[in-house]
């Protein structure tokens, strides 16, 4: 087991190196003078020179790379021009907001997509089957930002059941004392039910938007995997042994079908981390996505670079987790001839 994890970590290493190299090159690929970019549009010639020296941009490329790695190792991702704060601390402060949103959205997607896929596979031709196939085909065509706006229009403007899309909490509530950064958890820990309800109310629409987006590939894969599992030879054996329908579907078929679904999760995460940015813009969510957007508009480059690097590292870690989970569930892994 430990050996499996070690091997997986080893395969993630080249990706890690690649990611760091690419983010480094992206900075240096800036058209014009990178120092000017980091100094910002309002900087004087002297300020630009100082920045150039401080960032080591006057040194050779390999030396700059060493500096860059050194900075990363120290946890230094540069400083934001607009706020003057170290990028690392700003990202860390905003990360829980994005994480809470993404996790809730994913939970919603999984809790709908997987049962939907299972029912669609066990009742072919029924309305559930058709619904599943429509969702799977149409879902991938939905632009995330459009869904978000539609939801706001219907539930906030027309029906009035959702709060205004103005961030994590409305003006009447203040954030709970920060323990995890997740408002839902922190408010429960503080015993503050009013804040809990308020944060949940703000979370629902954006999480729903993200969830709808991830629903399609998950439902499609669950249905396909269940159909494949249910038509395999070992299911026929199970039926011939008189096992109950529940056991056949829930244990024999499902556990086999779950494997390709887990693999799909990797792709879903890639989309989710990107869609996060769009959803945060629609709902004015103070996460790292909107952090990056604000920085982009203000031509503040260090936060954008930090954002890309952070997202990539997160993604690599998530994929690692998926690989390890898969290895734990499938005893055949590592037995490749």
């Amino acid at each position, binding site marked *: 087991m430990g050996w499996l994890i070690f091997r997986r970590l080893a395969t993630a290493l080249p*990706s890690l190196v690649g990611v760091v190299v690419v983010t480094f090159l992206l900075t240096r690929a800036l058209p014009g003078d990178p120092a000017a970019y980091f100094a910002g549009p309002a900087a004087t010639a002297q300020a630009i020179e100082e920045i150039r020296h401080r960032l080591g941009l006057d040194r050779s490329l390999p030396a700059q790379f060493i500096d860059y790695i050194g900075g990363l190792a120290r946890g230094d991702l540069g400083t934001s021009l607009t706020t003057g704060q170290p990028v690392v601390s700003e990202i860390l402060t905003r990360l829980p907001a994005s994480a809470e949103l993404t996790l809730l959205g994913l939970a919603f997607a999984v809790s709908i997509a997987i049962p939907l896929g299972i029912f669609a596979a066990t009742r072919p031709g029924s309305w559930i089957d058709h619904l599943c196939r429509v969702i799977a085909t149409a879902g991938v065509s939905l632009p995330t930002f459009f869904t978000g706006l539609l939801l706001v229009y219907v539930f906030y403007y027309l029906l009035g059941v959702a709060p205004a899309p103005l961030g994590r909490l409305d003006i009447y509530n203040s954030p709970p004392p920060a323990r995890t950064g997740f408002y839902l958890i922190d408010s429960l820990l503080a015993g503050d039910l009013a804040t809990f309800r308020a944060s949940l109310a703000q979370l629902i629409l954006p999480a729903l938007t993200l969830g709808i987006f991830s629903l399609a590939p998950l439902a499609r894969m669950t249905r396909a995997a269940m159909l494949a599992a249910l038509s395999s030879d070992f299911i026929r054996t199970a039926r011939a042994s008189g096992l109950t329908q529940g056991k056949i579907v829930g244990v024999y078929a499902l556990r086999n079908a779950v494997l390709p679904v887990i693999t799909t999760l990797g792709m879903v995460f890639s989309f989710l981390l990107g869609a996060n940015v769009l959803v945060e813009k629609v709902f004015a969510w103070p996460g790292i996505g909107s952090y990056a957007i604000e920085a982009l508009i203000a031509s503040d480059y260090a936060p954008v670079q930090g954002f890309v690097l952070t997202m990539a590292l997160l993604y690599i870690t998530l994929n690692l987790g998926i690989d390890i989970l898969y290895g734990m569930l499938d005893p055949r892994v590592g037995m490749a001839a």
Partner: protein
Amino acid sequence: MIALLRHARYVLGDNSVTGLAFSLFLLFVFAAALGPSLAPHDPLASDTAQALHPPSARHWFGTDDLGRDIFSRIIVAARLDMGIALASVVLAFAVGTLMGIAAGYFGGWCDRIVSRIVDTIMAFPLFVLAMGIVAALGNTVTNIVYATAVINLPLYARIARAEASIRRESGFVEAARLSGNGEARILLAQILPNILPIMMVQVSLTLGYAILNAAGLSFIGLGVRPPTPEWGIMVAEGASFIISGEWWVAFFPGLVLMLAVFCFNLLGDGLRDIVDPRRRT
């Protein structure tokens, strides 16, 4: 070839949805090609007296906050959106396929380098990488094309690599080799045409994704600048009016965007069923 066409007719006829998608596709191409001449109003003409009017007989999709006709803007935007998507997909297809077949056919260090590049790209969440590339290269439409091309490249490279390495030892390649053809010639003249149908299916499948990507980037303010009409940026411009109830400003561009992506995806599915029904899900 005849058999392929007959099979295509069977699939298209059998599946009325694919047929519908194809007609919709033609509509979009039509709009993109003839764009400005089809628009009833000047997409850039602002008329503040007409600002934020709901859909009416005169303005089918209503007007935006500057009094511009949304319907006209949407039609004209078709050319830009489809153009960006097409350009980036063609670029990704060309570069990715060449890289892929070289890697699959020659193997060795060529394969290692290409695989390393592809894996590095795939190590990023793709939209985030696109953001980073556009931020680094500059906020222009051309760079949107490059960024979208880069993030679609891995798909083509991987498929081309797999298909090329399967065909490396096949009969027709052996025959070409024995008749004295050089390796490069075999690659371009034998293998490439043979895998083209499979790659074309990928092209249609990724066109939809490319449009979504480009629209997403412009939604957050990258690439296209106002007053250029483009579906993504139009939705962004209309977003602030949703909470005050002027839904049409963001709704129609978003709807058209969705329909375009939907029709490309359906077409892609239909094409895949024609070319390789085994891959159906």
